């Protein structure tokens, strides 16, 4: 029972901690890269805690408990007793089923998302080959259109292969409409390109995909929904930083010019535009994260990620100290 309680308590506490220290915290806007890692660590650890909570319930019913007891040289009966709950086998099965379904759901949602993305990208590339004009000097594909638009299409050479390619970015294309090219000065265009290339280098599409998959897996509840929204916004800021200090001002004006030149959808705002926040943020220089802070962050994340595993094994450890016949100690 201690595993169940410990894991659920951890899930709740980690979620609360994220809301308190990660959500809309000042430091996340100064160090977006680190913040993205932090949100990922929180999401993974909370998800792992919830899933492990279900699986540990199942443990007394499985042969796995015998193997586990052997590994730790504990008493099997005692080990099973530690993982049992008053509700018995019924709850154990329910927990196990829930955990399995959540894991399966995540795998399905994430894979489906990636496949859909791949199909869309392939079809887009085919269309770009028809209507786009490649500018080899700038490394972009230009399309003749009156609506200003710039976007990047990840994974040109195929996802995994691109990782090992010697290209400046992770294999992908940056697409610019003619209207966008006309609106921007050459310096601004360079800034925008650097931003998009930073997206491709960091593979933000994967990070955002995974976060959204987790959000969908847990039905848009809790810390996962927050993580997805935050990671999306932070990715833009990290890409802004990725363009370099010298292009910061150009990037800000490019952002202003492109957004004001485009056609809006609807009249009601979603409560503060990301673009405006980015422009204001670009007025400040890039804030490098001190080594000490980075180390602290890495440490905190390691703790977060290890905690669910340790908590799941806690009853096994407790079982070690107790004898089979209950002679050794009290509990």
């Amino acid at each position, binding site marked *: 029972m201690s595993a169940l309680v410990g894991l659920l308590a951890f899930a709740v506490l980690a979620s609360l901690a994220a809301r308190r220290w990660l959500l809309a915290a000042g430091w996340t806007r100064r160090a977006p890269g680190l913040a993205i890692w932090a949100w990922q660590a929180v999401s993974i650890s909370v998800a792992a805690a919830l899933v492990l909570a279900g699986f540990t319930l199942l443990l007394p019913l499985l042969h796995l408990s015998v193997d586990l007891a052997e590994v730790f040289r504990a008493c099997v009966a005692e080990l099973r007793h530690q993982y049992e709950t008053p509700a018995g086998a019924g709850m154990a099965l329910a927990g196990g089923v829930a955990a399995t379904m959540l894991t399966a759901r995540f795998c399905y949602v994430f894979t489906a998302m990636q496949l859909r*993305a791949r199909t869309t990208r392939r079809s887009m590339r085919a*269309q770009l080959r028809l209507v786009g004009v490649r500018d080899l000097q700038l490394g972009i594909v230009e399309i003749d259109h009156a609506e200003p638009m710039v*976007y990047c299409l990840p994974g040109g050479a195929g996802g995994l292969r691109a990782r090992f390619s010697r290209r400046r970015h992770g294999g992908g294309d940056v*697409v610019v409409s003619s209207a966008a090219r006309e609106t921007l000065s050459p310096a601004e265009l360079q800034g925008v390109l650097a931003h998009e290339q930073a997206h491709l280098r960091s593979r933000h599409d994967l990070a955002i995909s995974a976060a959204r998959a987790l959000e969908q897996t847990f039905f848009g509840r809790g810390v996962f929904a927050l993580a997805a929204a935050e990671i999306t916004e932070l990715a833009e800021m990290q890409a802004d930083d990725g363009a370099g*200090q010298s292009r910061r001002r150009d990037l800000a004006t490019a952002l*202003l010019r492109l957004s004001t030149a485009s056609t*809006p959808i609807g009249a*009601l705002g*979603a409560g503060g535009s990301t673009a405006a926040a980015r422009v*204001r943020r670009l007025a400040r220089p890039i804030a490098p994260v001190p080594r000490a802070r980075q180390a602290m962050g890495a440490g905190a994340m390691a703790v977060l990620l290890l905690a669910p595993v340790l908590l799941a094994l806690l009853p096994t450890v407790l079982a070690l100290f107790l004898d089979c016949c209950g002679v050794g100690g009290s509990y």
Partner: protein
Amino acid sequence: MQRLWEAGRPMAVRDVLEELDRELAYTTAMTVLDNLHRKGLVSRIKRGRAYVYTPTKSREERTAELMGEVLAGAGDRGTALLRFVEQMSSDELAELRELLVENEASPGREDGAP
């Protein structure tokens, strides 16, 4: 496709070959046009012994289709692509226009200014 769009009239393989900058075998051009036809990008009718080809949609239409996909993709929360700036409401647009005015009013400002 470029040549077909530019011509604005139905073209046979022979005509396309004439328009091309580079040297290409007749059979190669014929194969390419045949593939385009199979993909539904061009339609063809027989004139005498040869086919003449016409694009099924204009270049503008194709481009507009592509742009439509990009805009729709963003709304579907898919991650096929990442846009530099998302579409926004007119409220957000107004906020940005204000920032633009402020920005243009102070061109010499250093990046480090608060």
